[in-house]
């Protein structure tokens, strides 16, 4: 009896983990999560999107859609007023109390799992395609397309023997850089291209001290475009006390990329990761 119950739990857990079953009615979708929005555009189902959150800023056209706020700070009544038939969200959409309020009104809500790897992006793509009932005839070609990037990334990882030592900077607080530690999307991207994250021993996005940056001395710095702009461009980086003495800045190996494209773990992350790996050669 206990074994049966156990199996049931496993089955249930498996089911919940991969809830990619087709939605009852995907005709009017509200999306909370930039990578999901991008994937729905890739699947050519953008005409079904009725609203997006503030992290969905790509492609351009999304800016004309009503905004339901930030993915982790949604408003129940606001979303429901748009009468969506389906709410698609990133694994961290919330707050949980608001999600519970929405459930009470019996609008279908699907949370898409996130694994921060190249294969994870393909899984996300397949999951959304299933939920939106996109026929295989349409997805096959698109998937092929994405898979070529994945293969390319695998090759980059295999061929690259000299693993570049990189620090990835999200933004700055009072001039000190916020760095990608372990379990962050930034760390995921660096793993994807076989680079070494010099801050992989810290957990999450953390501010780094000048000394820790000097002692790890990364050969490359990767910065989000927004972060670079906030510091006053490359000139600002060269003056930044925490960064200017690193090998990366001395040798001019500082690269800026669009934050959402690099770290969003949507389809663009695959392309951007390849672009990044070229730069780190």
């Amino acid at each position: 009896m206990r074994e049966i119950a156990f199996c049931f739990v496993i089955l249930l857990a498996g089911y919940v983990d991969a809830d990619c079953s087709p939605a009852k009615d995907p005709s009017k979708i509200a999306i909370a999560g930039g990578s999901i929005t991008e994937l729905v555009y890739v699947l050519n189902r953008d005409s079904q999107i009725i609203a997006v959150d503030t992290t969905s800023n790509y492609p351009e056209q999304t800016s004309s859609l009503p905004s339901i706020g930030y993915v982790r700070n949604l408003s129940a009544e606001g979303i429901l007023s748009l009468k969506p038939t389906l709410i698609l969200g990133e694994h961290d959409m919330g707050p949980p109390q608001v999600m519970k309020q929405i459930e009470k009104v019996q609008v279908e809500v699907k949370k898409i799992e996130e694994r921060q790897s190249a294969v994870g992006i393909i899984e996300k793509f397949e999951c959304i395609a299933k939920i939106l009932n996109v026929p295989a005839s349409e997805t096959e070609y698109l998937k092929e397309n994405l898979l070529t990037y994945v293969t390319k990334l695998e090759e980059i990882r295999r061929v690259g023997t000299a693993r570049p030592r990189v620090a990835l900077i999200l933004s700055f607080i009072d001039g000190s850089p916020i760095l990608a530690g372990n379990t962050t999307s930034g760390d995921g991207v660096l793993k994807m291209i076989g680079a070494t994250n010099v801050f992989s021993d810290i957990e999450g996005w953390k501010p780094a001290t000048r000394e820790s940056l000097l002692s790890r001395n990364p050969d490359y710095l990767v910065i989000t475009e927004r972060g670079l702009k906030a510091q006053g461009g490359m000139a600002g980086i060269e003056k930044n006390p925490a960064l200017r003495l690193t090998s990366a800045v001395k040798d001019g190996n500082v690269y800026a990329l669009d934050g959402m494209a690099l770290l969003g773990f949507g389809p663009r992350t695959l392309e951007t990761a390849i672009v990044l790996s070229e730069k780190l050669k």
Partner: protein
Amino acid sequence: MREKTLEAPRSLSLEFAGKSRRENLVLVMLAFVLFFVGALALSSGAVPLSIGALIDGSAKGLEITIFSEIRAPRVILSGLVGASLAAAGAVLQGLFRNPLADPGLIGVSSGAALGAVSMIVFGSALDLPDWIAIYSMPLAAIIGAMGVTFFLYTFSNYYGHFSVVTVLLVGIAINALASVGIGAFQYLSDDAQLRSLVFWMMGSFGRADWITVMPAASIMLVSILVLVRQSTQLDRLQLGEAEAFHLGINVKKLKRLVILVSAGAVGAGVALSGIIGFVGLVVPHLVRLLFGVSHRILIPGSALLGACLMISADLVSRIVIIPSELPVGLVTSALGAPFFLWLIARARV
């Protein structure tokens, strides 16, 4: 009125004898305003609803659910939090005889924040059963608020004979310590927790839910009533602690009661809504400028006006950028501050 109080002790006691007609009128008027603000808030929002349809039964299932599960708990919570903050502010200003006192000062808000933040960061690691997990954050916030207030009380009682100055200074120190704790939790939190934490600190009534609102509402309601009952004693305290003592007031007991009850009211509210500034400090001053300084009108008046202001602020935050929402703390300050300035200019205080 003023001449009467100056006459003789006999008329002084007359002043305390009960509410004047004018005071009753003001409170009834405020109650009416609260009723209309509440009705307006219940009937407006992102989803168009008609109260009439809800009453005569012609409303659809979706509308009923939105009204009863989303909007109603939200309006009730915002009203009670506004009332608690304002009543606690009024009482604490009276107790400390300091116009700048507010619930934040005695550490209630930061204590509650510390409790809630610890739960955001460590809650998932505790692996609590579901039925407790719903209450874990509000409970932690209340424990934080009570703990900090209790510490403030015992510390200043033991080392400083619980004088007003000690309480204020210890309050400042405790607030600083609590922000150290909050900062530490922020550092320990992962990306997702950090973002929850930031939004919790901003304050919102969007998370209102009957199962958490009901217990908090009971605590707030009882606390407000207890605070209102202290008005005569607080009026006498304005004459000075020694004078109040000679008028037969147990000053120490009054202080203890008022501080702990205020902490309960504010803690229960902050636990669900997050931190919302301005209301506790400013609403009592609004009531003083508009209706007078007697605590018999100040405390209930602040509670009613605080509820009105908070419900309207939440209404504005809900409808101004549909389908998204503004942080409610932003709205309370944006609505209240200019009005407050106008009142100061007019009254030339």
